[in-house]
């Protein structure tokens, strides 16, 4: 029974993973694979010595944990609001999904023009209300603003996912428990903290871990809006891997960056697997 699954796993996951590690130890040029040579740890040594690797590692950490933290907090608040009874709730529940449902490249192009310093809507609005009086703000071209701006866009896009997942968990909380807490004199905060949160925690944890992995791998938005710039201020590990491989033609170096990313993500995957097992036992 298990054989087909094992074959698929070996073919589509194990072999590529092992081969990726092998490629990271070679000077692979996809245009001339017959010239491929084993170079040991040269790609890793070269990578660790480069400022762009250190920049991309730092940016990846800020990007991943920053985005997911804000998405979780705002998504949780959104889910609690959407779980309450109010008029038009069904419509609002549908509308909040729009950022999540919009293709990433469309989102990127839309924000590119909203954030344009000279012709963009945001600076125009800021000027109109008197909040911008000097030179226009270069949201994506200032090395201190570019990453936070990109993060704000990703947070905006990712909140609906958290809201919907947590909302589904909230709807699974038995009303008897909530009523019992009320009878016992618990206020809203105590009910949330002592009753609701423990019950939705497995869903929250799995959602957070999945989202951490997706966010760490996600670079479409950055590629379109800043291409990692200015001066590597928004360069993340997967984008660095893509640029190194395809733009630099250095597939060994790109694979080395991919391996580092994979090792870091493996820690999150281990947490995820443990959480799944716990959920199954529960």
């Amino acid at each position, binding site marked *: 029974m298990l054989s087909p699954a094992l074959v698929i796993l070996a073919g589509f996951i194990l072999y590529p993973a092992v081969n990726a590690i092998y490629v990271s130890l070679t000077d692979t040029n*996809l245009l001339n694979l*017959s010239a491929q040579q084993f170079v040991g740890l040269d790609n890793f040594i070269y990578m660790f010595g480069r400022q762009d690797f250190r920049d991309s590692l730092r940016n990846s950490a800020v990007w991943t944990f920053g985005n997911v933290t804000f998405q979780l907090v705002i998504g949780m608040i959104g889910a609690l609001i959407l779980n309450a009874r109010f008029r038009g709730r069904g419509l609002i529940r549908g509308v909040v999904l729009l950022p999540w449902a919009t293709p990433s490249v469309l989102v990127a192009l839309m924000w590119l023009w909203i954030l344009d310093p*000279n012709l963009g809507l945001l600076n125009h609005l800021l000027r109109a209300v008197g909040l911008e009086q000097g*030179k226009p703000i*270069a949201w*994506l071209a200032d090395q201190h603003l570019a990453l936070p701006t990109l993060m704000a866009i990703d947070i905006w896009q990712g909140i609906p996912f958290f809201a919907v997942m947590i909302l589904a968990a909230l709807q699974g909380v038995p009303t008897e428990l909530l009523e019992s807490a009320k009878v016992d004199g618990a206020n809203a905060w105590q009910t949330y903290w002592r009753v609701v949160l423990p019950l939705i925690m497995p869903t929250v944890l799995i959602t957070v871990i999945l989202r951490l992995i997706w966010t760490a791998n996600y670079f479409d938005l950055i590629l379109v809006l800043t*291409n990692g710039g200015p001066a590597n201020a928004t360069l993340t590990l997967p984008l660095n891997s893509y640029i190194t491989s395809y*733009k630099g033609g250095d597939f060994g170096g*790109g694979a080395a960056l991919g391996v580092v990313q994979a090792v870091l993500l493996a820690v999150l995957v281990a947490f995820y697997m443990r959480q799944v097992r716990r959920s199954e036992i529960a």
Partner: protein
Amino acid sequence: MKFRKGALAVAPVLIATLAACSGASDAGSGSSGGDVKGTTINYWYWKDDTTDQTMNQLAAKFEAQTGIKVKIDDSVAQPKFYDKLVNAVAAGNAPDATQLDTNMMGKLINSHVLADLTSETKSWKGYDSVLPTMWPYVTDSKTKKIYAVPNKFLMFYAYYRKDIFAADGVTSFPKTQAEFLDTLKKLYKPKKNQYAFDFRGGPNGQDQWAAFLVAGGAKFLDDQGNVVFDSPEARKSNDIYLKTAQYAPPGAVNDGFAQIIANLQSGAASVIINHLGAAKTLDKALGNKVGVALIPSATGDPAQTTYMGTMNAEAVLGASKHKEAARQWVQFLASNDAQVAIAKSTNGYVPVTKEAAALPEFTQNPNIAISLEAAKHSVTSWPLLPGTTAATTKTWQPLFQGAVQGKNTGDQVITAVAESLKTGR
């Protein structure tokens, strides 16, 4: 959707993996010569304007003349074109012929992906009808072998707002780079949301930068084909280019093509550097408010200046099984009639044949005339070196942006680009 995002992140790794299964696709196989009537060839190019049908019309005409069918794939836009080609070569399903930006060619030549067209090209009856200044764009500077046929040619020059210049009392476009900097100071009026030169620090801005440095006296290679880019001339011109940033529109450090065009149209920028690709849009939007001029040089004397151009050339893949038919197609595209059609297409290009370039409809078009004027003098492009791809698409942007924002020095940009050209990293 999320699966796709995750897949993108590990794409290089997976592609490398899949490619390892596919085996090498080195050049060398395939037949040449013989009767090619009835042959179907696969040809790839990217469209600068998605509505343009010129190439399809030329393919139909070519089929009527030769009996060779050209199956065109124009589905991938320029930014992703090279990625697709690399994957196809690795997977062993590359096209028979392809359009190539000259910046891509060095790596492909070095990896033996392109067919050597030297003897077939030199014996081709159309060889002498192509402008002689076009051949260096497709010729390996060390081996002198020809790897493509010239096709869509573009020279870099300056577009400027004549109305803004006049309003600020600037009567003529500066000829030297020192005068250029002085002029930019006069045009800089931030309170009016009017800035001077949008230098394009974002995607593909290396072309504008290099065109300015080359006009300033920088050279990529010496006569023996050695990299000599790290020179006092390059450093001096780079310093001037970086100083223009203080008069640039906000955001110029990240600007790409769309932003520099929009800024010139709105008046946020008074000067940009580009090629003919911007002409139709700017003419339509600005009419006679936009002027064109040669890029300011070190001396101000065009006769002593080298100007930079770029070319989308047509190459035959070494692994093609239909090299002869593919060669006929790429040569057909450089014939006079095809060149007239391509030059008149939606996007517009500078003709590469002498006869087409002399037609009044082109010589009287100010944008083509300025391109031909620049091309009369010494011309160059990014060299056909394996390191050019890395230098232009990986190395330049972060370091140049860093220099603009004070994170690193201007000299470090020159040193790193020269190093990338030499080493390919």
